[in-house]
């Protein structure tokens, strides 16, 4: 039987259509994916993201371990609660997973960290982290006791504060973008996967259904994984397994900005291979594609760049905010401003743009 989050019954009660997602029974929508999408862009929506894997890395070696494990550098996390997006690379420079790591320093002698990785990659991630931790004084502890609810949209923070009241509202109002702090036995972060302001809230499983109901009563719309995908794609954010995987370099997946090259003597897994690729000039790059005429770009469609070569759409969809189709694609590095995509045997002209497509409700390319 598939895994169920603490909110499974809440989803059924809200009329969710459930689907299998990485071994979990998750809501794909509660009626209309487009209405849910628009709710997040204009007001406030929420997602059950409890299927994601929360891992605490503790012990005096935790900083040195994560500096070795991750392509981005946790030494950048100077304030308590500050978060960092990073790839976790293999020795060939491919992306094992993308993740967010929070600095959990709370006045104790040693910093510790909370890492959030994907759900479909859980087992390989935990196995890899454990193997690589040999020689470091760290403990790696999964936190299945947490449910996680992402509340996203221009009114997300105000509505969540109204529902929670003090003292949690004060903690929320103190958060900078990309920062998370504990509040009682919860952990509240100002992060997300939609291109809107909002929160990702870790709440003990047994408290999750009541909090979910309070949010509904407070005017926050339940949204499914369908809307989550169109929102993240408009925001130009990668989806692991579609836009990159173990065989794809971060340089070919729009993740170059997440690699901390300095200090030069920091050895992290995959550094040699990716550094050599960078020095030689990567063969492929990630771009955004826009199809303003009719039709929908989809993952795996072929991209043809005249006189340059071929690439592939890694994820594509209809953009509810823009009213036409957008995609992320991996194309030859020399690709300029136009390309063609093959849809059901026909070539369609597309514009090549720099993602993101939408931020804070507005077109940005």
């Amino acid at each position, binding site marked *: 039987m598939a895994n169920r989050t603490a909110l499974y019954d809440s989803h059924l009660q809200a009329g969710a259509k459930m689907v299998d997602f990485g071994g979990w029974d998750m809501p*794909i*929508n509660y009626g*209309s*994916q*487009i209405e849910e999408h628009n709710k997040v862009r204009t007001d406030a929506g929420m997602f059950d993201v409890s299927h994601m894997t929360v891992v605490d890395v503790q012990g005096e070696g935790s900083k040195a371990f994560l500096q070795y494990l991750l392509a981005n550098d946790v030494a950048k996390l100077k304030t308590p609660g500050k978060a960092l997006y990073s790839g976790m690379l293999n020795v060939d420079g491919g992306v094992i997973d993308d993740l967010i790591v929070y600095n959990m320093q709370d006045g104790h002698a040693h910093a510790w960290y909370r890492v959030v990785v994907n759900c479909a990659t859980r087992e390989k991630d935990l196995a890899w982290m454990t193997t690589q931790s040999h020689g470091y004084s760290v403990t790696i502890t999964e936190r299945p006791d947490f449910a996680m609810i992402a509340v996203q949209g221009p009114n997300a923070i105000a509505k969540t504060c109204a529902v929670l009241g003090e003292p949690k509202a004060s903690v929320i109002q103190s958060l900078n973008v990309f920062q998370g702090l504990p509040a009682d036995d919860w952990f509240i972060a100002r992060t997300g996967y939609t291109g809107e302001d909002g929160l990702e809230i870790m709440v003990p499983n047994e408290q999750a259904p009541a909090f979910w109901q309070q949010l509904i009563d407070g005017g926050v719309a339940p949204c499914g994984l*369908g809307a989550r995908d*169109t929102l993240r794609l408009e925001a130009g954010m990668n989806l692991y397994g579609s836009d990159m995987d173990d065989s794809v370099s971060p340089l070919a997946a729009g993740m170059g900005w997440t690699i901390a090259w300095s200090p030069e003597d920091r050895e992290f897994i995959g550094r040699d291979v990716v550094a050599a690729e960078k020095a030689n000039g990567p063969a492929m790059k990630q771009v955004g594609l826009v199809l303003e005429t*009719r*039709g*929908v770009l*989809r993952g795996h469609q072929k991209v043809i760049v005249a006189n340059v070569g071929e690439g592939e759409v890694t994820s594509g*969809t*209809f953009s*509810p905010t823009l009213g036409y189709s957008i995609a992320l694609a991996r194309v030859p590095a020399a690709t300029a401003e136009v390309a063609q995509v093959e849809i*059901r045997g026909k070539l369609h002209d597309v514009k090549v743009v720099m993602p993101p497509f939408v931020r804070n409700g507005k077109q940005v390319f």
Partner: protein
Amino acid sequence: MSEIPTELRYLSSHEWVKVEDGVATIGITAHAQEAMGDLVYVEMPEVGTELAAGDEAGVVESVKAASDIYTPVSGEVIEINGDLEEAPETVNSDPYGAGWMFKVQIADESELENTLTADEYQAQIEDE
């Protein structure tokens, strides 16, 4: 359970067909639109196209996926529902009415014997 009108015939690929005066009107079922989610694009055959039973006649695309539309009967396309170009969501809201897709002048009525009754279609989607 999705609505399956008894007066229509069905294809296992989730199209419905209504026959009146030798003309077949074709659309997709309530079950099909529900499975696809919000439709954003409907591609239809051109008026005048000669189709053979089982041919791909068009495509519906939702936010999630694309799906081919097949014709259950041979014949010439005599009309398409042009309103769907601007309002593909009509297929979600009224799949058996305003969401119809195209009409074919039936060349051979005996081909309709290969379609499913409402009960047969219901049994099929219950098995899925």
